């Protein structure tokens, strides 16, 4: 009996084994090698406030605006939300799936002593899993900064890239076409503070030090342009160069030890120089009779890109930081100037002029392809965010000088808060990543 049973089992086993070979597959294999570049839909539900009065900042609103401005996310408007949970237990994921939201952020601001404790949680709407959850202690004065800090952490978790929302920008504000002020503000334009002012003489070309403590800039305070260095915390100012002719376009090297700038090597002949900040010694980099100006450093500090019209009209050139024969880099059109290298060193932002119109464009250094990102016609002074995801620049809107931010893929555009009539904003520069507490 057992032998018969064994043989039957054996047969069944063999037959079963044979079946998959004889029959068709039940698994499809598909390769996915492409996706979309659109903003990922996210919802930041207004945080619940546990405390007296009102919090000093609408934290959820700041987070939503930050993420949307980066171009990588699109925050759902509060009026479109089907529910507004502030605890994980109150979340009904169907209400978010139906809106095709990918990630959900909820939170609470709790008044604690003289400050706040901010708790937030991020969920993947489809897997229902909590991706991250933190609690941050802060003061009333720093609540907005904390909101930016939360934006940074969410951005990093969901994109793998460091967020730049706690960084700062500097720019020049001109009132009535003659009153100049050098301003430092948050990367979204809030909390603007003047660090230097001049009644009638222009301020130009601010540049951040890599540690975010100092700004170099050009001031015409003695009816002559000179390069100054100012510590924005202490206010201490130092004159770096006031030679005859041009003193302009200062820019820090990535290690903070040198400053490249434009000086007149002889009347009417601007050239690129590098100053050692410790010794104040100058090293001349370019030697042509043409205009050589607007230097910028590569992220490894080994090369300088600059504008030169040695070929007839302004184009971008590259030269070793030690000096040598510059190589031309741009060949599109007859006017390319004010190059800025992206933090990853792979692309150059610049101003491209076409038929008298100025556009901010980005050139991929590997392929040489130039892509126009803006269409204002008077767009200039581009500056990369330190995470390379956005570019801030100066534009003219309704006859007024304004600041705009554009994502590097050109998809998202935002105008920073406009000012009253008669006030123009120029020359924005994006500051570096800051270590916490600054």
């Amino acid at each position: 009996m057992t032998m018969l049973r064994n043989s039957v089992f054996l047969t069944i086993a063999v037959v079963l084994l044979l079946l998959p070979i004889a029959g068709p597959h039940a698994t499809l294999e598909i390769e996915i090698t492409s996706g979309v570049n659109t903003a990922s839909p996210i919802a930041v539900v207004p945080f619940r406030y546990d405390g007296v009065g009102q919090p000093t900042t609408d934290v959820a609103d700041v987070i939503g605006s930050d993420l949307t401005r980066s171009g990588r996310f699109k925050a759902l408007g509060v009026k479109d939300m089907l529910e507004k949970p502030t605890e994980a237990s109150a979340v009904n994921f169907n209400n978010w799936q139906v809106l095709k939201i990918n990630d959900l952020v909820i939170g609470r601001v709790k008044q604690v002593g003289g400050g706040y404790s901010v708790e937030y949680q991020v969920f993947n709407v489809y897997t229902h899993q909590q991706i991250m959850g933190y609690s941050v202690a802060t003061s009333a004065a720093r609540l907005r900064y904390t909101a930016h800090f939360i934006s940074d952490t969410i951005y990093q978790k969901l994109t793998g890239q460091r967020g730049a929302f706690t960084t700062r920008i500097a720019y020049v504000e001109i009132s009535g076409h003659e009153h100049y002020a050098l301003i430092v503000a948050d990367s979204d334009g809030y909390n603007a503070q003047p660090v230097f002012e001049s009644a009638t003489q222009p301020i130009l070309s601010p540049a951040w030090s890599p540690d975010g403590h100092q700004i170099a800039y050009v001031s015409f305070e003695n009816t002559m342009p000179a390069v100054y260095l100012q510590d924005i915390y202490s206010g201490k100012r130092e004159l770096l160069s006031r030679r005859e002719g041009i003193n302009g376009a200062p820019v820090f090297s990535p290690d903070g030890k040198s400053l490249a700038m434009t000086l007149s090597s002889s009347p009417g002949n601007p050239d690129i120089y590098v100053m050692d900040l410790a010794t104040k010694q100058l090293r001349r980099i370019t030697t042509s009779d043409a205009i050589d100006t607007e230097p910028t450093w590569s992220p490894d500090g080994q090369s300088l890109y600059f504008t030169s019209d040695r070929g007839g009209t302004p184009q971008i050139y590259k030269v070793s930081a030690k000096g040598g024969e510059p190589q031309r880099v741009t060949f599109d059109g007859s006017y390319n100037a004010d190059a800025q290298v992206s933090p990853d060193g792979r692309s150059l932002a610049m101003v491209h002029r076409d038929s008298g119109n100025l556009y901010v464009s980005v050139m991929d250094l590997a392929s040489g392809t130039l892509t126009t990102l803006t269409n204002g016609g008077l767009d200039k002074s581009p500056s990369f965010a330190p995470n390379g995801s956005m570019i801030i620049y100066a534009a003219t809107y309704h006859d007024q000088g304004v600041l705009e931010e554009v994502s590097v893929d050109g998809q998202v555009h935002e105008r920073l808060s406009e000012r009253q009539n008669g006030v123009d904003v120029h020359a924005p520069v994006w500051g570096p990543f800051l270590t916490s507490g600054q």
Partner: protein
Amino acid sequence: MDANPHRLRPWVYSLLLHGGIVLFLVLSFHWSSSLIPSLGGHNPEAEPVKATVVDQALIDQQMAMLKAEQQKKQAEKQQLEQNISSLKQQQASAQQQLNQQVSDLQKQAQTEQDKLAKLKAQDQALAQKQKTADTNARRKALADEIASEERNRDARMASLLQKWEALIQQKIINNWVVPPSTNDDLSCLVLVTQVPGGTVTNAQASTCNGDDAVVQSIITAVYRASPLPAPPDPSLFYQGRTLKLTFKKPQPP
């Protein structure tokens, strides 16, 4: 040694059983092909006859002609015999002559009959050949038709399967927001289970060399694409009950 025959027996049973199954399979295969000729309802006999009718008429005609001739000769013969009987006495040699003629005619008739018989035999042989060739041709044509139909069906199913793959692929592509941290050598394998209707019931990354953000984006993409597109032919569904998706870093256009 006593145990041997007992030990062998199960093996014998087993072999017999297996042999029987195999035989069954083999035989059943052949059976399917021999079922083919039962198509239509034509009488294979009818067709070849058509072809010989003309010949038959001709031969009949010939035969009739020969018969007529023969009859004629008969009549003549009779006439001659009459003459002979009246002229018997007169011309014995003439009778001999006549006899000779008759025997000649008979010979002729014989050769013609032989000819006819030969033609008839040829005709029959031809008819037989036609019948076999025709049937074989039919059988071959039908076998070819069936094989080609099967090939078409397989090709159609294969192309429909491809189309289904493309539909699924496109829907996932449209829902995959690629994060900036995607590494150049990304290769992320995701195993997906779906139920009829396309609803994704499970999506899990197995081998994946992307960071958290990338894995999140991929899993989200699969769920956002749910319900997955239905196959163009419902019978294909079971072939894609599970999906093995390999995500690679998109190349710039």
